[in-house]
C-alpha cells in the first residue's frame, strides 16, 4: 500500500499553494496564435523557465551544487503539474529537464554539472538526448555511433535519430560505442556547435518538427566531457528511466486531464460512457503515478514496475484522443484545430520511450518472472 508521506505533505501543500498564488499574479500564458508553431513553443518554454528560475520555483527540488534550492524532488512534479495544467508549456519538451539534469548531476564531473545545469534550468539553453539510431530503436544497446580515443580527446562518427529539439539545442547527451556489448557504451556531453555536426529536422505526420536526425562526422570531444567512465553509457541510459517514469509522467497526466476537460466542454456527441471510460483510465494512471512519486520520495529505487505506469499512461493517452475523434466528429478531419495535431501525436504514445510491446516484454520477464522468450 501507499507509503506514508505525512511529513512531506505539509511542505508540498504549502509549496503548491504559494506557487499557485504566484502564477495567478504572474501571467506566463503563451500567445494563443503561436501555440502550435514549434518555434513559438520553444521560445515560450525558455520564457517560462527563465521566469520560474528567477522567481526560484524552477530551482526547488534540485541540489544546491547545480544552482538549485534543495528540497524533495516531488516539488518538481508539483511545479510541472501546474505548468502543464495551466498550458504554460508543452509538457513533452518541458519535462526534458527531468531526464537531462539528473544525468548530469549523477555522471558529469561536478564542476561541469555546476556550470551547465543552471543554463538548462534558467531557459538560456536547450539540450537534447542522442540515444536512438536508424538501426537501434527498441534494441538500443546495438547502437553503432562510435567514439575513438585520440590522446585526451575522443572522435565521434555516426548518426542519431528521433533527437527531440536537436535543432534548438546547444548541447547533447550522447551515447556512443567505444567497445562491444552493453559494457561498451560510453556517454558524452557534446557541444552541438562542434565542427562536423549536421542537424536535419524530421518531418512528422503531426506537422511539428520536434525530432531531428543528427550526423556526426569526425567530431572531436574533450575527454573531460565524458559522463562517468568508459562503458558507463548503458547505466546512464537506464538510470534516467525512473525520472522519466515518475515526474515526467505526472506532468503528462496533468496535461491530459486538462485536455479531458476541454473535450468534455467541446464534445458535440453526448456519450457519457465514453467520457467516463477515459476519465477512469486517466485517473488510474494518476493514482498509480502518485504511488510511484511516493515511493521515490521515500527513497525507494524505481525499477521495472514503472513499465506498468508507462502502459497505463500510453493506453489512456490514445484512448483520450480516440474518444476525442468520436465525440468531435469531423473536427480532426475538417478543421484546423489543435485536436488534429494532438490526435496525430498521440499515435506515437505507444512507440516513443519504449514501445508498448517492449513494456509488456519487461512486465512478463521482470515482474511476472515468466523466464525467457
Amino acid at each position: 500500500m501507499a507509503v506514508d508521506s505525512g511529513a512531506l505533505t505539509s511542505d508540498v501543500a504549502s509549496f503548491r499553494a504559494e506557487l499557485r498564488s504566484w502564477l495567478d499574479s504572474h501571467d506566463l500564458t503563451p500567445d494563443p496564435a503561436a501555440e502550435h508553431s514549434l518555434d513559438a513553443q520553444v521560445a515560450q518554454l525558455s520564457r517560462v523557465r527563465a521566469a520560474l528560475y528567477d522567481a526560484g520555483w524552477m530551482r526547488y527540488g534540485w541540489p544546491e551544487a547545480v544552482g538549485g534550492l534543495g528540497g524533495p524532488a516531488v516539488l518538481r512534479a508539483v511545479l510541472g503539474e501546474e505548468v502543464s495544467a495551466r498550458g504554460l508549456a508543452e509538457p513533452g519538451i518541458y519535462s526534458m529537464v527531468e531526464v537531462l539534469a539528473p544525468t548530469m548531476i549523477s555522471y558529469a564531473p561536478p564542476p561541469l554539472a555546476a556550470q551547465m545545469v543552471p543554463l538548462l534550468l534558467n531557459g538560456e539553453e536547450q539540450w537534447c538526448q542522442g540515444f536512438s539510431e536508424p538501426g537501434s530503436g527498441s534494441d538500443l544497446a546495438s547502437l553503432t555511433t562510435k567514439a575513438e580515443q585520440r590522446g585526451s580527446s575522443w572522435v565521434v562518427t555516426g548518426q542519431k535519430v528521433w533527437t527531440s529539439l536537436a535543432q534548438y539545442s546547444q548541447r547533447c547527451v550522447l551515447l556512443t560505442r567505444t567497445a562491444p556489448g552493453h559494457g561498451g557504451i560510453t556517454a558524452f556531453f557534446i557541444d552541438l556547435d562542434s565542427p562536423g555536426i549536421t542537424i536535419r529536422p524530421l518531418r512528422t505526420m503531426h506537422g511539428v518538427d520536434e525530432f531531428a536526425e543528427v550526423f556526426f562526422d569526425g567530431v572531436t570531444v574533450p575527454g573531460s566531457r565524458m559522463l562517468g567512465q568508459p562503458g558507463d553509457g548503458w547505466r546512464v541510459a537506464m538510470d534516467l528511466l525512473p525520472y522519466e517514469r515518475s515526474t515526467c509522467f505526472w506532468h503528462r497526466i496533468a496535461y491530459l486531464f486538462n485536455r479531458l476537460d476541454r473535450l468534455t466542454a467541446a464534445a458535440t456527441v453526448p456519450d457519457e460512457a465514453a467520457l467516463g471510460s477515459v476519465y477512469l483510465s486517466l485517473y488510474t494512471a494518476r493514482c498509480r503515478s502518485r504511488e510511484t512519486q511516493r515511493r521515490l520520495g521515500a527513497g525507494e529505487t524505481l525499477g521495472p514496475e514503472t513499465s506498468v505506469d508507462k502502459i497505463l499512461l500510453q493506453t489512456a493517452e490514445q484512448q483520450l484522443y480516440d474518444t476525442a475523434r468520436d465525440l468531435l466528429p469531423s473536427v480532426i478531419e475538417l478543421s484546423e484545430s489543435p485536436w488534429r495535431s494532438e490526435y496525430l501525436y498521440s499515435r506515437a504514445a505507444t512507440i516513443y520511450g519504449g514501445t508498448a510491446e517492449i513494456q509488456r516484454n519487461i512486465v512478463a520477464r521482470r515482474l511476472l518472472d515468466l523466464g525467457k522468450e
Partner: protein
Amino acid sequence: MAETDELMDAAERDLLAAAFRKAMTTSTLASASSSTLSAPGDDLAAALRELGWTDLLAEFPSVAIPMVFRLLGETGAHAPLVNDVVLATAGRDPDGTLPLPYAGGSWVVWERSASPGTALDDSIPLRRTDAGAAVDRAALAAGRRAVGWWLLGSGRAMLALARAHALDRTQFGRPIASFQAVRHRLAETLVALDGAEAVLAAAGDRSDTGPADVELASLLAKAAAGQAALTAARHCQQVLGGIGFTAEHALHIHVKRALLLDGLLGSARELTREAGRRLAADGAALRLVDL
C-alpha cells in the same frame, strides 16, 4: 482516522492477515470436500468474527476492508461480509442483511443462512429481492470499496493460476510461457490489476492527500476493480486453454465470482457511465488525489 490506523503496527496486521487467510483456506477446502449442504459462507463468517473481524471493522475500517476482502478473492472463499460493511458504515447492527442494489436496476440480498443458490456462482446465496430503500451513501461507498478489493483478489488468484499453468504446460517442446502472445496477455492482466489496486488504495487513503470526494473515488475504484477482474478472467481463461474450461480446475470459481461481484453495487460499465455523467455535469474532471 489516519492516526488510529497507525496504532496497528505492521507485525500485528500480518499476524491477523495470516489468521484470516488460514480460516478462509480451511473453509474453501471444507466446502470442496463436503457433499452436504453446509453453509461454508456463514461458518466462515462465524470463524472470522471469532478472530476479531467485527471489532477490526468497527475500529480500523481502512485496514479491515482491504485486508479481508482481498483475501476472500485470493483464497476463493466467500462470506456474507458485504452486509457487515454496509450496515456498520450506516451505523446499524452489522449482523443482519439488507437489500443491495445490483446491475440493471435489480436488487439482491446476500443471505446469511445458506441453501443452494441460483446465482451464476451457486456457492453464494445471493438472491433477487424486491427493491429496497436507498442505501446510505457513505455505506454504499464503503461497500463498493469492499467488493472492489474482493474483485482485485479474485483477479490476482486468476493470474496466479494462469501464470503457473503457462510455466508448467509444454507445447511444441517448450513452456507456453515462452510465447510472446501468452506473455503479453499475462502482462496485460498484471497492468490492469496493479492499476486497479492503486485506485482502490487511493479511495481508502485517509491521509491529508486522500481523495477530495470519497464517494466518487469509491465508485471509480469499484469500476476499475470490476474492469480489471473481467480483464483477468478473459486473458487467464484463454491462457489456461482447455483445462480452464473444466470444473476440475479452480479457475471457473474465480471467473464466475468475478462476473457475479462485478454487478453488485453497480457494474464496471454502469459505474463508468455514472462517472462520465458526473464529469459532464461538472464540466471538469475531479483530480481527486494530489501529491
